[in-house]
């Protein structure tokens, strides 16, 4: 067993794990954050996507011990005080899900997409960048619509905060 310490959704956590433990297992089994899903377990489907130091990664293909000292954000870390994150709200509004299994990964990938490419995302860019996320209900159409709307909403949500800070 070995010790791993990291920050998850703003909270400092420490766990004692077998070196074989994957980041997704640490999140789900040790920390009981079961919003992050295991779909394929072979780094294809993207249901396990979380943010590691601000970047989207597949937590099924990352060892827990490799992220010692890092900052991780999961789907549970997006909403603030019970208010959905603009991207979550956009998925709800545009019905960007059917069974919902891929949704946490889709939303984490979408927020990452916005941080890399900005708030104005066209359909081709979104579809291209969803390369690493699979929806087996094949409900991509509404997912793409939700991401475009969510990206725009994130821009609007960010503007007043920035102005207030200035």
């Amino acid at each position: 067993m070995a010790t791993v310490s990291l920050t998850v959704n703003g909270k400092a956590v420490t766990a004692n794990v077998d070196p074989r433990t994957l980041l997704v297992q640490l999140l789900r089994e040790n920390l009981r954050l079961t919003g992050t899903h295991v779909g394929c377990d072979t780094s294809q489907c993207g249901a396990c996507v979380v943010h590691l130091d601000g970047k989207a990664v597949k937590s099924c293909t990352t060892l827990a011990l490799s992220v010692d000292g890092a900052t991780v954000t999961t789907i549970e870390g997006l909403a603030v005080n019970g208010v959905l994150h603009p991207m979550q709200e956009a998925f709800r509004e545009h019905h960007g899900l059917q069974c919902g299994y891929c949704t946490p990964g889709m939303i984490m990938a979408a927020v990452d997409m916005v941080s890399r490419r900005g708030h104005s995302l066209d359909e081709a860019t979104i579809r291209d960048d969803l390369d690493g996320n699979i929806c087996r209900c094949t409900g991509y159409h509404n997912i793409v619509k939700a991401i475009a709307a969510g990206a725009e909403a994130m821009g609007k949500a960010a503007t007043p905060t920035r102005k207030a800070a200035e």
Partner: protein
Amino acid sequence: MYAFTYHRPATARQAAGLLAKKEDAKLLAGGHTLLPTMKQRLASPTHLVDLGGCADLRGIERKGRNVVIGAMTTHAEVADSAVVREAIPSLAYLASHIGDPHVRHRGTIGGSVANNDPAADYPAALMALGATIVTNKRKLTAEEFFTGLYETALEEGEIVVRISFPLVSKAGYAKFRNPASRYALVGVFVAKRGSEVSVAVTGAGEGGVFRWPEAEAALKARFAAKSLDGIKHTAKGINADMHADAEYRAHLIGVMAREAVARATGK
């Protein structure tokens, strides 16, 4: 996966020390090949040496007429690097088309090169651009380094430290992606330096990446996609699997080569 002892050295030197001392130790770079392989129990190292903490293996630098990339630099970092985009845009383009965005945040150039997957993208770039692979022990050309299917010249205890790419006058990469895995069904990297032309093919060869001398000769006479008209690669020695037979892959080599030259010449 089977149990292993985990090590996280802070420098390449410490990593080399562990590799020399521990029996049956394996290096972990981005982990996007090794971890899935370990999950399937196709690999079961006793010791796993994670290079993720080695800051000295990261970074991108322009050194005179070369771009030097640390082994633990991720595909996303190469794709987004202002230095690479300006000096060798075709290399940034290649990096931006490996796997998917999440894979590119973890996968590394050193890991890709050391694994020498026959369908990986980087080996074609290293071979066509005439890159030098710098290890903790020596310097190797791409021709010396890539020795066969998943085989390299790396010896016991040897670690890829960085890769140095000389600047070229023109270069381009084109790949036909496997629609499921995003690996190259066939990928062709062309580069022109002075009067020399290199054409390197990945995804197609039974023995991994290889050069295509016939296309090089034609492009040396005139560096234009049209120069490759009528030149066909043989299906002999070309991979065949459920995704594509040898004939189809051989055909794609020509198509991708013309596309790569068109990109290199901006046409």
